[in-house]
């Protein structure tokens, strides 16, 4: 029976709630000001829109945080060439230290210090799996918010 209890997973279904994770998302907050490295097989720059599109196994590394996807679009300011937003699509994964967030799409607003993951959004943090309609991560504080329909799979401690 105890073996069964150890293996038992508590599945919690919560609808239309907002859940905040206080522990923060990896080292995202401390990585925020570090240089950002974009790696891909190809990059196409659109001068008129000041947009760089990266294709095929794209990675954006900043400190210990890595955003990867099949397609990433970097939008620069037309006035001062500052990076304003990053859009990621297809097999999106944000990894920071041991924390992982996966989704179909992600938007990183550098001016608002927010990363939004939508479409099959899935957070893996401290051994827990959380599914939500949207995951919002504040890159300044690391605070993670789970929006919409939230489903949590909690693995109980073995002790």
């Amino acid at each position, binding site marked *: 029976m105890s073996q069964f209890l150890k293996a038992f997973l508590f599945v919690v279904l919560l609808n239309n709630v907002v859940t905040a994770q206080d522990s923060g998302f990896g080292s995202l907050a401390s990585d925020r000001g*570090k240089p950002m490295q974009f790696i891909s097989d*190809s990059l*196409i720059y659109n001068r008129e829109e000041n947009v*760089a599109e990266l294709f095929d196994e794209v990675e954006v590394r900043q400190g210990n945080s890595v955003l990867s996807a099949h397609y990433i679009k970097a939008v620069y300011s037309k006035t001062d060439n500052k990076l304003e937003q990053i859009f990621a699509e297809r097999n999106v994964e944000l990894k920071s230290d041991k924390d992982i967030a996966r989704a179909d799409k992600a938007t990183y607003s550098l001016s608002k210090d927010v990363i939004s993951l939508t479409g099959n959004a899935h957070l893996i943090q401290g051994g827990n799996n959380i599914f939500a309609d949207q995951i919002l991560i504040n890159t300044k504080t690391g605070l993670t918010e789970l929006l919409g329909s939230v489903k949590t799979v909690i693995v109980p401690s073995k002790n």
Partner: protein
Amino acid sequence: MPSLQISYSNTIFYLKVILFFLGLFAILLIFWSAKKIEPSTEIPFAQDVDFASLNDGLTQPLYSSITNSGDEIQIFAQQIIQTKDKDAVLIKSADLKVFSEIGSEISLSSDNGLLNKEEKNLIFTENVLLKTDDYIQITTPRISTFLDKTLIQADGPVLGLFARGHIEAGQLNIFRENISSKLVISFTKRVKMLYEPD
């Protein structure tokens, strides 16, 4: 007194007529002088200039043309040296500028260039530098450009500045497929772009 009045009004009348025609002539003159001289549709260098007649030490030649994609290209050089190949000349301090319809500019320079009139291309070698008016700055060992189409190709490793950061890649292609299409700047083969936030 009446005869004086008649002659005065006649003088005024003729002066007015002369003034009218002078004004008309001045307007025509302005239009004639402002008429834009269209660059030739073919590169005069590639078509009209006979390489054999060029002498060493020819300074500051300037050639301009419109590519089939609608961009204007201009070629500058400090010196043109004949080669054994009758279709090719060596260019010292080669400089090429590409102007698009919206006014944006790409400039390319190198210590040496090889212009081939048969292949209608200009190959830049040694200290090759590509610059755009939006702060992209690329160095690479060799760049090929074409005189009749908007196409710039660097097959070697490219390094440079890009959007407040750095970029490196294995290949660079800049092209415009036709007049209505956008200018494409494409980096390929293991692209690494570094962005430095404030």
